[in-house]
């Protein structure tokens, strides 16, 4: 009896077990892996992509995808820098300028995502295509805003948002934890979350059950883009500038983390908790390999192979 129970538990927590095994191996093989400083460092490294990954989980569960999150990060950072500079030039205080610029970037992110969602539900254009278009539009716009050179208008304290510590914990990691709790609650304990699962599982059945499918899709697309903007602000705070070249390829890391976490690309299935595991798994893998002095080229190969293996394990488990 207890064996059967253990097997069931093991099956449902397979990714946790693999993550645990990975940590155990690294604790022995990689010098300096198992220290508080290093683990906090891992957490800080994954937190910005992780924040987006939670939003991406909701998008993928709803049956959509967003390929523009990487460029949205770069764009939001540049926009924040650009707005700060412009507002400060009007004579507004630097603090107020930064605050308004951040708000502007978040709103911009929200609007871009909502527009993708609107185009999806109104004209039936797949989000894959719309966000692919956004990807180049946002990259180009970031470069237009900065003119090709990083903008550095930020005050000293701004760095806290990306590089600061609160009670010894990196600030981005705190935001990461908050976004996790919030999205976990939303997906597990609200009618909103239930609607997102239903829409991704069978949009027509959801519609005929009186769920506003269009609204669900528009909102999840807006939320992920808004979270990307939030990550973009924190990223610009970490490097203290708005640079168009940051966050290249993030969309793939983010989607990989979501998939490793067991979310189905077909929609309707997935868990925020799974994505948390996926994000941490990728972060620890990179960290461990770096500590073990494995060359970057090999790291790419190993990462790709492990992503595919994780998906196969999840598939076999279903």
């Amino acid at each position, binding site marked *: 009896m207890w064996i059967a129970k253990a097997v069931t538990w093991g099956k449902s927590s397979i990714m946790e077990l693999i993550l645990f095994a990975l940590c155990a191996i690294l604790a022995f093989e990689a010098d300096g892996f198992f220290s508080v400083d290093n683990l906090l460092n891992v957490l800080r490294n994954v937190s910005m992509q992780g924040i987006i990954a939670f939003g991406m989980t909701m998008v993928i569960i709803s049956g959509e995808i967003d390929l523009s999150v990487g460029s949205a990060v770069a764009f939001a950072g540049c926009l924040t820098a650009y707005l700060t500079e412009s507002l400060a030039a009007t004579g507004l205080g630097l603090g107020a300028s930064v605050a308004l610029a951040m708000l502007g970037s978040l709103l911009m992110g929200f609007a871009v995502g909502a527009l993708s969602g609107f185009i999806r539900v109104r004209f039936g254009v797949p989000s894959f295509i719309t966000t692919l278009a956004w990807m180049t539009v946002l990259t180009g716009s970031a470069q237009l805003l900065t003119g090709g050179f990083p903008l550095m208008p930020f005050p000293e304290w701004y760095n806290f948002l990306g590089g600061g510590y609160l009670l010894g914990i990196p600030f981005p990691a705190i935001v990461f934890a908050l976004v996790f709790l919030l999205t976990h609650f939303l997906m597990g*304990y*609200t*009618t*909103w979350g*239930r*609607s997102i*699962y*239903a829409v991704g*599982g*069978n949009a*027509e*059945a*959801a*519609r*005929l*059950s*009186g*769920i*506003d499918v269009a609204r669900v899709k528009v909102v999840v697309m807006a939320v992920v883009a808004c979270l990307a903007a939030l990550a973009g602000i924190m990223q610009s705070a970490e490097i203290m500038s708005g640079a168009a070249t940051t966050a290249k390829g993030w969309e793939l890391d983010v989607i990989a983390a979501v998939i490793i976490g067991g979310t189905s690309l077909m929609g*309707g*299935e997935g868990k925020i908790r799974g994505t948390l595991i996926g994000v941490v798994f990728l972060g620890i893998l990179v960290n461990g390999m770096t500590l073990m002095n494995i060359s970057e080229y090999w790291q790419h190969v190993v990462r790709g192979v492990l992503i595919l293996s994780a998906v196969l394990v999840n598939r076999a488990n279903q």
Partner: protein
Amino acid sequence: MSETPFKLATRDLGKDYPGTVALDGVSVGFAPGEVHALIGKNGAGKSTLVKMLAGSVVPSRGQIFCDGLEVALSSPQDAFAQGIAIVYQELSLVPGLTVAENILLGRTPKKRGIIDWQATYAQAAGVLERMRVDIDVRARTGDLGVAKQQVVEIAKAMSLDPKVLMLDEPTSALARHETENLFRLVRGLAAEGVAIVYISHRLHELRHIADRVTVLRDGRHIDTVAMVETGVEQIVQMMFGEVVQRERPGDLLPGGTTVMEVQGLTCEGKFAEVDFSLYEGEVLGIAGMLGSGRTELLKALFGAEPADSGKVVLQGRSVDRPTPARMKALGLAFTPEDRKEEALVQAHSIRANMCMASMGQIASGGYITRKMEQAVVDEQVAKLQIKVASTEDAVSSLSGGNQQKVVVGNWLSTRPQVMLFDEPTRGIDVQAKQQLFQVMWDLSREGIATVFVSTELEELVEVCHRILIMREGWIVDEVRPETLTADELALRCMGEN
């Protein structure tokens, strides 16, 4: 069997599917030159029989004879080899190709590996000429109307020079004059000695086309009769059988209050000028053949498909721009015809499916937990006697009847004022059907009104207070079930009264 003149014949043919007998003991023969109609209600076993003759379903027992010799048809290729061709209801043409290419699909004549267009066009034109139809073989197939596409489909089958041609509901998409042309074509083919097997549910066509009729009911071969000696009424009787009618409880009387009023509701090409009132606690049936517009009407009532004009009045107020979400808020509930595609998320749990429409009622201020859901789900599972091992199992693991109960339970939890049921009994067992009727009656007792659409006319007669008859998008009649039988209702639905 060898002395029979039949081109194709069966003896005691049967087919079992897990849990059900789809067809049993069918012995029938198809003679060259005859048009032999195969008729029966949904689920009577027509398509199972045809698929076995076409080689796409392997019989569980019995024999098939071609020219008096027993044959095994284990693939469509085997059937072709015996000269048996079939035209299915769904057209299988490639719209982007020419008529000639479609007729000779996969068999286009080639010269040195390249399509020989001249020969292709000539061959295709030859087939059409033999059928005495005038269609340009160079035309793009997608540009033709449905009727001509139907003819191309038949030409495709005829190009194989079959001895037996089976037509599955060939007229379902055709207008009246197109149907007449098709009949002429079919008669011509029969005159050349082809045995035609004609599957239809349109009784009134039979007189014009069929020489003999085989009636199936519940997978059994009821009889094969000559059309000239048989009236439509007799055939209807064979189709429906002696139906034991359960009485609707006598205490269920609709109240005087109107809960829903439909005024002049029209949707171009689907239904027109629909007017009716629905009273408190009333069970209102809508009877109509396939394509009569009943499903479209129900969807429009629920706001799932837009209507062009007219209005739906609920609680004394006309609903503008109805959507399913708004209609649900106004106390409407709707179980769609296509349970699998439109009502359930197959991969999700029974619990999740049972809370899909009703989560707003279950949650408090948007906050919802499994525990809150479980209480409601357990209540419905008990009330509707749903047989489940665990409500966390995927809904796809349930039988059709239990899946339907999940859909119904989901909507009951929304505490509706009006329930709209579209074909709720399709593919569910007898016991589940009776339970479903009990639900409608229980609702009626609580004052909740029901609109019940069904092709199973005897069900309507059994369950409803009042029945509207729909034909070609119009409500043509209103009847009381006490005044007529299911077969009389069937005749009215087909415009035969």
